[in-house]
């Protein structure tokens, strides 16, 4: 017998990195960001993610989502600051920057304040908090633009595949919905009605939903004619065992959740939780046997994937360890306000996150 053609993509030359590697790397950077409020470290993390995106992003449509996530991060930061200015901050402070006219509120709204003193401490604390959230968003955005979530879902085990498809289809519907709303608002204008304002957007709601429904039915029909949902015949006993395992597993997880949340039951809850998870997982694995699906050219998991995922994990582990050793440097005090300093040991730790910019293969570029 001749050797069969290789079914995974060859691990040399320009190719897409395994999507899971990108997500592990980005989650590592994100986990590191949650360990600190030091703005210098956060900016360093964001810059690291940004550099890797610039170096290894492809030219597919989802690659452009990085800019959107950056803007979203800035928006979150802005909202956090505006709230701190308008509603005040729980952080006690003495350095008053300016005082806004305070809105008198009735007695029942005690504890809520609109306007009033704005302190440096309050602003700084809001800035650090917002920056941490923004950095997290930037990390997710980096993963999103480096590997489309759809490709990540393709790597799911067989039993979860159909749920994965539902998610992918839902995600492709979002841009379609936006396009529909635009088209129908334009059509309102053609009827001589106003196309601006909330009322105009709301009035197209029903036709947009109708359109979405029609599109999903068309897609479902197309998927059915292309063999979606074909199942293999499995022995009835196996099917029964699968169902029993999954059901028992889910039941165990529910019981354990109840036990964990109510006081006193914590002793038995943890083992039950673990047992339940194990049973559900076994059910999933057995359930995958019903699926006939094969994968066309799955992405290989080779050295670049190990390096990428490893660098993310290393950043997370090192930053967490350093933060536990020197908490003061990682959470600079705002009362009284201090200039945040960059602990030198953190720089190489964070810069480890740059490894994929060199280790990951370049994505294939299309001649345009």
């Amino acid at each position, binding site marked *: 017998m001749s050797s*069969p053609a290789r079914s995974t993509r060859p691990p040399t030359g320009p190719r897409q990195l395994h999507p899971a590697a990108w997500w592990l790397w980005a989650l590592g950077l994100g986990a590191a960001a949650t360990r600190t409020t030091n703005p210098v470290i956060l900016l360093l993390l964001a810059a690291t993610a940004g550099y890797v995106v610039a170096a290894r992003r492809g030219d597919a449509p989802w690659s452009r989502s990085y800019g959107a996530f950056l803007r979203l991060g800035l928006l979150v930061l802005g909202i956090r600051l505006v709230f701190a200015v308008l509603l005040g901050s729980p952080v006690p402070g003495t350095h008053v920057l300016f005082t806004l006219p305070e809105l008198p509120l009735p007695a029942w709204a005690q504890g809520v304040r609109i306007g009033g003193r704005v302190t440096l401490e309050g602003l700084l604390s809001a800035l650090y908090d917002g920056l941490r959230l923004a950095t997290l968003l930037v990390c997710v955005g980096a993963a999103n633009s480096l590997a489309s979530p759809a490709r990540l879902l393709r790597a799911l085990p067989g039993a979860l595949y159909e749920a994965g498809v539902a998610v992918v289809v839902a995600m492709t519907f979002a841009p379609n919905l936006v396009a529909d709303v635009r088209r129908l608002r334009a059509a309102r204008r*053609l009827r001589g009605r*106003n196309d601006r304002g909330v009322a105009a957007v709301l009035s197209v709601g029903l036709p947009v939903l109708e359109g979405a429904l029609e599109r999903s039915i068309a897609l479902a029909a*197309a998927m059915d*004619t*292309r*063999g979606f949902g*074909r199942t293999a015949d499995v022995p009835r006993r196996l099917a029964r065992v699968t169902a029993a395992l999954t059901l028992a597993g889910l039941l165990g997880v529910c019981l354990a959740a109840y036990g964990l949340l109510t006081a006193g039951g914590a002793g038995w809850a943890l083992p039950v939780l673990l047992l339940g998870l194990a049973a559900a997982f076994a059910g999933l694995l057995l359930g995958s046997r019903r699926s006939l699906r094969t994968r066309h*050219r799955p992405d290989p998991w080779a050295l670049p994937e190990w390096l990428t995922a490893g660098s993310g994990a290393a950043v997370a582990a090192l930053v967490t360890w350093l933060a536990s050793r020197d908490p003061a440097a990682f959470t600079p005090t705002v009362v009284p306000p201090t200039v945040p300093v960059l602990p030198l040991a953190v720089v190489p730790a964070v810069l480890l996150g740059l490894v994929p910019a060199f280790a990951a293969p370049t994505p294939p570029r299309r001649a345009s």
Partner: protein
Amino acid sequence: MITFEQVSVRYADSAEPVLRNVDLTVPEGELCLLVGPSGSGKSTLLGTVSGLVPHFTGGVLHGRVTVGGRDTREHRPRELADLVGTVGQDPLAQFVTDTVEDELAYGMESLGLPGDVMRRRVEETLDLLGLADLRDRALGALSGGQQQRVAIGSVLTVHPRVLVLDEPTSALDPGAAEEVLAVLQRLVHDLGTTVLMAEHRLERVVQYADRVLLLNPGAEPVLGEPAEVMAHSPVHPPVVALGRLAGWRPLPLSVRDARRKAAPLRAELDGRAPAAAGTPDGAPIAATDRLAVRRGPVQALRGVDLALRPGEITALMGRNGAGKSTLLGSLVGLHAPTSGSVTVGGRTPHRTRPAELIRHVGLVPQDPRDLLYGETVAAECAAADTDAGAAPGSCRALVERLLPGVADATHPRDLSEGQRLTLALAVVLTARPPLLLLDEPTRGLDYAAKARLVQILRSLAAEGHAVLLATHDVELAAELAHRTLILAEGEIVADGPTAEVVVSSPAFAPQVAKVLAPGPWLTVQQVAKALGA
């Protein structure tokens, strides 16, 4: 390969069956073309072959449909997936993944084919359909013709023995349609695939058919040689109409066959010319001056100069994505110019209030349903009167004139494509705009609905409306337009009387012009009139 035995289909909400007692056999390896007016059950017949009828659409199927020996009533569409491939009118609606290669592999993955087989077949299909350069491209970034070829490729990779296509070229410009038809041709010749295809635009496809199946509401379906069926078919392309007029036997179906028979006709017509339509020369009611529009990253229009006069029908043609819809949109103020200017009735459209603008210009969009919100025709008309500030009943009177005999209580969704278009047209005309724009009005219309549209637009032009229609339908432009504009990459590359612009163009010339070139004839009516005179 496909046999129908006493097949009838009735949907739950209709009294009459859509199909009645269909009894026929489509042999293996043939390209069988399904023709018939709207509502004759073409899509339903195709659905019974892929198993979507009745498993997906509901309804009751009597009789038996077998494909390759499998009864489609007992097999769900997914169990027929290795045997029947289905491609619809809109390829984007059937794509499941996001790149070309993944889409080609999707069907095989569902069937559980081994990796090395998938790898080989993807490569073969990329070559067969000429898609090799596009393998990593995102599906949304492809042109219409490329998308349709990917859609065909994505069902071909599982090596189906039957391919079912529902209006595969309706949404495509003439060039892209030829791309797709060339691929189908190759499948039938090289792979022996049985192809069952429904299409309204017979002028594009009838010459490729081995057999034609004519569905006529209220009559027995007829399956036969294309030339024989076309000789009596109520729906037929212009080349067949010309052949019938000239009495050619056997009836030519392609321009080439007709041309070989046309020497005597050309000689007879020599020295005559169709009656020249008077070119209207009023003051322009709409004009653009070096109009440039950018839409996102795309420069959709670059420096378009255009003047539209009352009483003139202008056809706007060009590839998908050439900027036709953007030009129409700019004239109704949907897109602000990045440079240059647009004026309609002395106003700048994107700075004019919608309520005022509709008195100057009206647009019927590509999908007329976008314009219709009402639950009934009567409600729609009442809303149109309010929107336009017209006297109550104006819109209903227009509907009665353009679309006689539609009941007040009908839901717009239940109208046929042609009726819906006419209703949208009436809604737009309620505000009496002197300039009327139509975007791709003949998509999905059969020949009868098209003929009615031609009459309506002619009489509107005679009343002094200026009409601008964007279309891929060269036959419509030839029949209707005084003047034709061709757009390419956002620039006007040709602008002049229709006869002059289209006769010399290989893509945009109507069939009659191709047969009778170098004569200035565009339509069968012109020839008939000249012969009768």
